[in-house]
């Protein structure tokens, strides 16, 4: 029985570790804009009360209609004011409200215009109108028939929603309108594959005075908008700078960099796998982080400059997959050499001494450090088990992790050059890279300590075999490094169009 338990322990822990590592390699999907870039989305909320009928009307114009209305760039204050007074207010004429079959005049009581950064350096427009119509006196026991129709932007594609929300003291006897706000005033569009964009432009309702009826609760309107967008890239276009704004921007950059590091495929796997295998220390993790930061920052600059000044000769978009190939190949090579080194450390082979305890093995493994090349290089102090860590391999790892510049960082860089804010751009990118490296380092440290914890678990007086099992962890992680490298390379090669 005990044998079984040992067996279980022996298998389960390493297996769990490997699975965890694998889950980090898995590609994740990147969200895209829920609705097309050319949609004009309309939202009306009817709020009948005893005295008046209020309408909240929101128009969300995606990038292309915004461009058609305003051209490129953020419209000037004058242009905005003109639009608000003109076309935005004219939207009222496209709205038709009838009470008991009679058209009633709508007055615009409030209006607002906002521009939100969209894709491709473009903007999207959000128009918010509040309209009101006086309701004819509604005596107790009588009813009113409301009929509403939105005729704006006929023929253009988009999300069209009409919501009915009666106010206190009013009862809805029957209606074909929804009382549920599905898009949170056009802020979040349901992305479920089983829902088609809503296309409701009209609503009918019969209302009457009613007591004791609880009006439906209004949803908590959130301040921000939630379009998918590149928030880092948007930072560079901020027009007003003060020290506090700068501070916030830098912090935000770091945060975004950190988030970027958590996006799939960002070397963290490799870092983790490497460190856990190498029994690295915190110093290694930090060194690795610095390397990644530096490489990443430099990479952004080099690629950015290339984009600006050498695109005549080579298109960076063609270069990109090759960088990925290079990065992947680097990882494969590293993984293979690690594997070789660690296999030797675990199973010394013919050339090694026949009898030795595990400490001797470590020495032995260390002596095989030359697999990295014929040059002399600094050896790190031997770690507790398994292989050793060389500064050189750490450097290579850091470079491969930072070699592929984050596209948003590139946007910032190019934007900065185009806008003549190079210093600012540099600061932002460095902050971004620091954030990125911070997370990578953190993950590395997690693995370092995780590895130690495993080691301590095995360390006591239990069984040598268990320790030996643990010692094989490095081999597994070397395999993973290699595997990850192969995947990266393959994907990059496919992307480069070499193999089709």
């Amino acid at each position, binding site marked *: 029985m005990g044998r079984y338990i040992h067996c279980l322990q022996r298998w389960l822990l*390493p297996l769990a570790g490997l699975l965890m590592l694998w889950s980090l390699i898995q590609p994740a999907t990147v969200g*895209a804009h829920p609705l097309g870039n050319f949609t004009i989305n309309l939202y009306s909320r009817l709020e009948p009360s005893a005295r008046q009928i209020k309408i909240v009307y929101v128009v969300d114009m995606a990038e292309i209609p915004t461009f058609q209305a305003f051209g490129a760039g953020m419209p000037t204050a004058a242009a905005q004011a003109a639009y608000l007074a003109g076309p935005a207010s004219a939207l009222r004429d496209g709205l038709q409200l009838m009470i008991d079959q009679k058209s009633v005049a709508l007055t615009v009581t409030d209006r607002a215009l906002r521009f939100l950064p969209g*894709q491709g350096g473009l903007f999207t427009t959000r128009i918010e109108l509040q309209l009101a119509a006086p309701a004819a006196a509604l005596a107790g026991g009588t009813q009113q028939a409301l009929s509403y129709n939105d005729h704006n932007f006929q023929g*253009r594609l988009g999300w069209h929603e009409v919501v009915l929300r009666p106010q206190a003291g009013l009862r809805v006897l029957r209606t074909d309108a929804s009382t549920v706000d599905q898009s949170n005033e056009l802020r979040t569009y349901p992305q479920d*594959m089983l829902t088609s964009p809503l296309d409701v432009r009209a609503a009918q309702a019969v209302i009457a005075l009613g007591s004791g009826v609880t009006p439906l609760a209004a949803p908590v309107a959130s301040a921000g908008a939630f379009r998918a967008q590149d928030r880092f890239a948007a930072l560079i276009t901020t027009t007003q700078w003060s020290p506090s704004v700068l501070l916030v921007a830098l912090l935000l950059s770091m945060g975004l960099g950190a988030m970027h590091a958590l996006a799939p495929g960002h070397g963290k796997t490799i870092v983790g796998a490497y460190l856990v295998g190498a029994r690295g220390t915190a110093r290694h993790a930090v060194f690795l982080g610095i390397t990644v930061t530096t490489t990443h920052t430099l990479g952004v600059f080099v690629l950015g400059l290339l984009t600006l000044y050498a695109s005549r000769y080579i298109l960076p978009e063609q270069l990109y997959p090759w960088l990925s190939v290079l990065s992947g190949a680097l990882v494969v090579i590293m993984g293979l050499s690690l594997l070789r080194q660690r296999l030797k450390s675990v199973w010394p082979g013919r050339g090694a001494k026949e009898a030795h305890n595990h400490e001797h093995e470590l020495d032995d493994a260390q002596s095989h450090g030359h697999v990295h090349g014929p040059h002399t290089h600094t050896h790190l102090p031997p770690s507790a088990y398994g292989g050793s860590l060389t500064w050189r391999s750490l450097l290579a790892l850091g470079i491969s992790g930072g070699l592929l510049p984050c596209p948003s960082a590139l946007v910032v860089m190019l934007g900065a050059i185009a806008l003549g804010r190079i210093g600012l751009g540099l600061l932002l990118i460095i902050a971004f890279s620091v954030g990125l490296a911070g997370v990578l380092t953190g993950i590395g440290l997690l693995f370092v300590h995780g590895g130690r914890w495993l080691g301590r678990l095995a360390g006591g007086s239990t069984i040598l075999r268990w320790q030996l099992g643990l010692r094989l962890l490095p081999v597994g992680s070397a395999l993973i490094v290699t595997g990850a490298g192969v995947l990266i390379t393959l994907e990059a090669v496919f992307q480069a169009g070499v193999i089709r």
Partner: protein
Amino acid sequence: MTALATHRVSWKWLVAFATVATLVLVPSAIAYWRRPVDRPAQPALFHPLAWSRPGTDDAALQTLQQQIKAKPNDIVAYISLANAYLQRVRETGDPAFYAKTDALLKQAAKLDPLQPQLLTSEGVLALARHDFAAGLALGKKAEAMDSENPRAYGVVTDGEIEMGQYDEAIKTLQAMIDHRPDFSSYSRVAYARELYGDPEGAIEAMQYAINAGGPVPENTAWGYVQLGNLQFGLGHVDEAGKQYDLAIHARDQYPAALAGQARVATAKGQLEQAATLYGQAFDRMPLPEYAIAHGDVLAKLGRQAEARQQYDLVTVVDKLLTANGVNIDLETALFFADHDLQLPESLARARAAYAARPSVTAADGLAWTLYKTGNMQEAGRYAHEALKLGTRDALKLFHAGMIANALGQTGEARTDLQTALALNPNFSLLYQDLARTTLQGLGPAPASTPRSK
């Protein structure tokens, strides 16, 4: 603990780890490359979809959506809804449905990754996204699994044509129509004939397609638009107008038909009306080609600022497409070349497009961008390649003629330009006058000028 024992234990562990690593890595890698090894049993054959009215109206979509919600293991329902979504994109141009289609097909792939209908739909999606190589591969896979599936033949045909594999495409298409003559195969025959310089035969085949079509109005409208385009290409402006009207009749405000009517208006000199129609077409489906044509009409009207706004719009759409991961297309390269914008980029993009899909269309685009960037020798080569099937297309012939002229091949230039203008005197608002003046500049043909090879 003896040294020997240690040694033996290490061995065991090594094997154990290698096994574990293999067990984890290999299936994961296989999953990663989506090459499933197992094929689960076919789910319910007893299927309502065999009866349901085909269509992509909201009610039809809702029925399918509910069906999936009720029976999440029904692969046929997933595929049917995905197909309906793909048709929806044709109708609305709303790319949001591509993402939804993708999600559905991924879900279906979890049920049975090798279902031939699923592979076919994946192929259709890849083609729609202009990933022709992937579409072709998927189509071939589907065809191999189900040789009686005409849709798979269609995917393969489309892929082969876009990849410039014309002999293969004709063979596949012949097999397709011999298996099942219907709208799908007839309309593809029409395109093949058009490419091979037989627009009259193309018109005939497209008429067959329309007769066999139904009951999806967009498909019929599409067929009429193709007929209109073929007639227009032959210089039959009025006949083309009739076909575009029929398309509008089949589907109200069909953008491609609006653009066709704009083309007819342009040929008749009704530029104001053409501008309005192009604007309407773009508002309904923001294809760069509508903005380009709109800009050209405005420029001709002397409204330069408005024209420039349309051209900027082209750049914006292009930017957004690129940001959305769309294959950079020939269209933009030609647009840049035609308007002398960003010529080096234009050339690079045309080269990339030709490398990705070496079709005659891509060769034509590359030839013209090479001409615009002053690489005449190379341009001549590709211009020849663009016409290697004998395509009778005035714009392609004009390109070839101008290039021949630049190369000093006067006889060829004269023949090509004459042919282009004879075929369709209204072939291009930008170039038809240039074609005429260039031709005049070449002087009359000598008594007999055999076209040099």
